[in-house]
């Protein structure tokens, strides 16, 4: 069981992060509207945990991952990185060249193993670049490090002189993981890292990720739409809807004690591979609304079966509840639980 987290364990703190992409059109390419991809996210990531980000396509989970790495610049808010010696840095304030030392600590594994490796480079060629950049001058040493990395992801050393097309999807995804590991990061964002793989291969990659986490004391942010995978590997899960976090809790609580109606519908929609556990599907009507004109009040209210008048008028805040001594955050007007007192810190 997981304990309450300590303020000192925070590796990443997000405060009111917003990412709005301008939509241009008409005469002189004026900005006519904004796509509110991320609209006010507050999140703490603790050192050594696996945090799952789940939601439907278009809910902003990938954008949030890329914003954390500053591959996409946020329009508002703070993203604070806290190093082991308790130095705090707001990544959004840094210029590109100043970000350089932080790029080493935060890495990403991409979704599509077929397009994230350059087909014209050997595996060694693809993997040596970050090492060169971070100061390993001798080619011999680079070859040794890459060989060790490939062995760490259960592949043979000799594979480093082959080209990406010689590998299967699962192998390429493992090369992607090896690349993210090459400069010894502290936090890895796995953006749908296993979604493109067959189920039998998916289990291999998941087990590899968990093994590496133990060995290297890594923190993962695991972005996926597959809740069964999330529940299996994550410590905490954040459910996103239309650029906002609607529920955040320990993974063991998500299934048994979900509070938000969206989470309930999402979980009931997932077909369960267990004949004894068939539940009644809650079928949501319609599609996810457009992030250009999000609905007023609670973003989920047009599809919610429990909606009341207040839902279309006031936007619910993400409130903290305490269930069995564990934090459980949810943003819904209809939760009938006492709100927990704010943290002493």
């Amino acid at each position, binding site marked *: 069981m997981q304990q309450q987290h300590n303020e000192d364990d925070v590796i990443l703190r997000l405060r009111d992060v917003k990412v709005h992409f301008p939509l241009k059109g008409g005469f002189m390419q004026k900005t006519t509207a904004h796509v509110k991809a991320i609209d006010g996210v507050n999140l703490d990531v603790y050192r050594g945990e696996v945090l799952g980000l789940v939601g439907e396509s278009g809910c902003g989970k990938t954008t949030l991952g890329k914003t954390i790495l500053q591959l996409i610049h946020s329009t508002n808010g703070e993203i604070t990185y806290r190093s082991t010696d308790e130095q705090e840095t707001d990544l959004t304030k840094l210029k590109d060249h100043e970000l350089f030392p932080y790029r080493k600590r935060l890495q990403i594994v991409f979704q599509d193993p077929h397009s994230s490796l350059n087909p014209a480079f050997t595996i060694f060629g693809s993997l040596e670049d970050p090492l060169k950049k971070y100061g390993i001058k001798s080619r011999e040493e680079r070859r040794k490090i890459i060989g060790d990395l490939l062995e760490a992801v259960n592949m043979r050393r000799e594979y480093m002189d082959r080209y990406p097309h010689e590998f299967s999807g699962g192998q390429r995804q493992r090369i992607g993981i090896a690349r993210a590991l090459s400069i010894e990061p502290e936090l890895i964002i796995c953006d749908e890292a296993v979604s493109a793989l*067959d*189920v039998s291969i998916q289990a291999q990659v998941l*087990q590899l990720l968990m093994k590496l986490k133990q060995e290297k004391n890594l923190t993962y942010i695991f972005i996926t739409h597959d809740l069964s995978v999330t529940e299996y590997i994550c410590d905490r899960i954040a459910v996103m809807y239309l650029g906002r976090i609607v529920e955040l809790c320990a993974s*063991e609580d998500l*299934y048994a004690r979900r509070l938000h109606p969206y989470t309930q*519908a999402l979980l*009931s929609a*997932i*077909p369960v591979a267990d004949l004894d556990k068939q539940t009644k599907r809650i079928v949501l009507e319609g599609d996810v609304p457009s992030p250009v004109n999000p609905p007023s009040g609670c973003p989920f209210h047009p599809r919610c079966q429990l909606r009341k008048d207040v839902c279309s008028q006031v936007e619910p805040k993400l409130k903290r509840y305490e269930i069995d001594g564990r934090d459980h955050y949810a943003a819904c007007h209809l939760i009938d639980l006492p709100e927990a007192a704010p943290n002493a810190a």
Partner: protein
Amino acid sequence: MAQNHDVALTVSGLKTFMYTNKRCNKAVNGVSFQIKKGKTLCIVGESGCGKSVTASAVMQLLPTLSRIEEGEIIYHSDRGDIRIDQLARNGRQMRAIRGAEMAMIFQDPMTALNPVYTVGFQIIENLKYHTALKGRQLKDKAIDLLRSMGIPLPERRVDEFPHRYSGGMRQRAMIAMAMACNPKILIADEPTTALDVTIQAQIFELMDRLKKEHGTAIMLITHDMGAVAELADDVAVMYMGNIVEAGTVDEVLRNPVHPYTRALLASIPVLGRGKNQDIHAIPGSTPDPFDRPSGCQFAPRCAFATEACNVMPDETHVTDTHRVMCWRYEEFAHAAAAQ
């Protein structure tokens, strides 16, 4: 095989080979199954196991450099049995059946709809060839179909192009097109793989309704064991061109006897079981289709392989409906019974 009138399609001993660069890929290597009226048969397997090729063979939509080598595909129509495999691919008879009595939903609605025609035009095209409807009736029918699929404002949507539809709506438009002539057999090739779970739930609900209201026989191709548990009446598990295990959904999911089915079920996390579930990955990866193992295709990855597995096992029946291709299945059947 007992001949009865609640069977919609019988496939027996189907072999489909594909030819590329003077090499032959035995994509489907002896597959037999039946689809019953008003029931769903789920075919599960990993990519490259031949499930989509089986579907294309049934619809006579195979690519040019491939052919049905052996076996029978019999469509039990109201006018008597028709040997689909003996019809010319684009002959008059096949064209009369395809789209009208047998229809298919493709995996990717983004590429299966033609971007330069309106959705309405593409639905009407089907109705024009297969029904006696004319002029305004055609359009009204298309609007009706879109409405029954739950697409809002069908009167306006019918004249819109596919790019203005969202992924879920495109897939529903595809189903509308497939259901236009109330087919007897609906083949759905991973219809929800590209969609979100909430949209997937809508599509599943729709397919359930079609099955109940029209008695459509559905062949659902998927790799999601969850979808199987929810929708299937019968299941066939494919691996490298063979159906390794088949039976009713209860038999296959509760009492799997083929090591591959057991390994597959053990390798997926199940929602609601929490963090402490045991997940066992299947070692290795699927073999190269041009360099297959000589005997049982699963033997190199199987924890129970023996000498005997170098020879292809025959299909054996565990019960009347439950069949398996494995030399050692009896041991697993006993182990499962003992539990």
